[in-house]
């Protein structure tokens, strides 16, 4: 891994900027020559507005960000992603994610086309050593647990510790309690999720990939936060992620927990 980094900084000098018009207006890439490459967020992958880039799906976008889905095996990461990407949930059609996989979606955030490249990871513990190498490149992390599975909630602290260890300091983290449609099987109360999120200073919401509850909101909130961070528009009021989430989030309705 360490070798890779040094090669990356060597290779990033000329070739990347000349071969990529969209990336040419980026700040010097990856800070290879600056003080500490590991502590800086290289916003690679961010395409600057005004130079629309054509992705493979022939969809234009102004900005691109990397989002990662993490959490225990079976909490519904892939389902959440498919619900967001395709607006669908077909029970019994999901396969366990092995290693790491991704899907793209372009969001319209206040008139700006934001491409989210969303990385879906295997939840099984042994895969963490394979996937955490990628944490440092992620702009946002959605951390999921399953409200019907206590262990997945208990493991959130360990996930947060790992995130703090490997991700960039200013990575956007959001905690999601998924599967709230299974009201009868719920074992983690909403208040417990809220309390934990507050303790770690991260926004929180409950979601259901099955019904779609708050799924688009979770990704939109991430998109808005990242867009506001990378585009400083004069006179625009500062975007406040926590407040936005609080205002927009919907309750799961039926269940008093």
């Amino acid at each position, binding site marked *: 891994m360490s070798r890779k980094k040094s090669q990356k900084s060597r290779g990033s000098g000329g070739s990347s900027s000349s071969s990529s018009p969209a990336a040419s207006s980026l700040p010097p890439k990856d800070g290879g020559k600056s003080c500490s490459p590991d502590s800086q967020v290289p916003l690679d992958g961010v395409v600057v507005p005004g130079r629309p880039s054509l992705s493979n799906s022939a969809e234009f976008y102004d900005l691109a960000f990397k989002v990662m889905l993490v959490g225990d095996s079976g909490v519904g990461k892939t389902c959440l992603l498919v619900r967001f990407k395709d607006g669908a949930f077909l029970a019994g059609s999901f396969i366990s994610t092995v290693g790491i996989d991704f899907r793209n979606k372009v969001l319209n955030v206040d008139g700006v086309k934001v491409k989210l490249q969303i990385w879906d990871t295997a939840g099984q513990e042994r895969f963490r050593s394979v996937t955490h190498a*990628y944490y440092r490149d992620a702009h946002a992390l959605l951390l999921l647990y399953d409200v019907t599975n206590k262990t997945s909630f208990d493991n959130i602290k360990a996930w947060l510790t790992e995130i703090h260890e490997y991700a960039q300091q200013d990575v956007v983290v959001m905690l999601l309690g998924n599967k709230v449609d299974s009201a009868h099987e719920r074992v983690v109360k909403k208040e417990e999720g809220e309390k934990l999120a507050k303790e770690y200073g991260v926004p929180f919401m409950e979601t259901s990939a099955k019904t779609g509850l708050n799924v688009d909101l979770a990704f939109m909130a991430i998109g808005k936060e990242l867009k506001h961070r990378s585009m400083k528009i004069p006179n625009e009021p500062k975007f406040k992620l926590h407040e936005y989430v609080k205002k927009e989030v919907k309750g799961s309705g039926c269940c008093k927990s």
Partner: protein
Amino acid sequence: MDYKGIGGRSGQEAEETAKDRIHRIDAYGFERPKDFDYASYEEFYSGYLEILTRRAIKWSKLLQRNNGVEKSLKVKRYIRKGIPNEHRAMIWMIVSGAQAEMDLNPGYYRKLLEGEKNDRLVEAVQTDLNRTFPDNVRFRKTSSPCLQQELYNVLVAYGHHNKNIGYCQGMNFITGYLILITRDEEKSFWLLDALIGRILPDYYSPAMIGLKTDQEVLGELIRMKIPAVADLMDSQGVMWTLVVSRWFICLFIDILPVETVLRIWDCLFYEGSKILFRVALTLIKQQQARILEAKNFPDVCDKFKEIIKGPFVMECHTFIQKIFTAPGSLSMKTINKLRDTCKARLVQG
């Protein structure tokens, strides 16, 4: 097989499209994907049928002789040209050494199943049962017989047999394929043992060091053989693990078409893990120009999803011929040397 009966319907044929003539479910029970290219498949398959017939005759002659499948150049050549499906399980069993192990350990598999179970292992396996091939009719809960029970048995037995590994996601898919081909739990168990215990490096243990090593080895091979792609990966900061981890862990299941995967596995059981590099190198080399169109990080990742689609990977016979020519020479000595250096680098951190 794959074709619906078309005899006596020649008059209507002109009006039919390939989609009408080919089953929605393939010979192994997999539903064809929504975007399945029926027309290209039909064109390929009509030619492939001839090859299959020719190979079937050759194999039955070979098997009539006593020493039919002792390792030899002839057998190797035959295997590279594809094992007929009716002999596949038997040949895999013999050339991988699984048959010998099974014969040496009668009753062992049953004993594992009857023994005490580790709760965590059982839970991990159960989490994945419904998530293994939901697109295959034989693995659906509603089908009878449903292969989920066999899958559960083999995975739990293996986890107790090889406690260092237990259960690792990815093994569910591999075992699923083994069950589909062998239709026999015990044989699937011993084939899984051959793959994990002997043929593949340490891909599935908790540290996954063999997997990390082979991803780096592939990176080094690309640097040697396809340097422009290596430069692109470096300049865009794309780690190999992001785009190829599933290739190695799942042995190309759900990456390449089923028939292509089986042809790869024919060679894998006989020739070993080197084959995985040959496949990876061929995919990347063949589609080099497309990969090099990528202008940024997300593009590079997208390209790696594109290169595993299309006629090139569907036409399994030509594809397998290509893996032995396109990457050029690839000796086990080179691979072992690279594995040593890459592993040392990883261990040092």
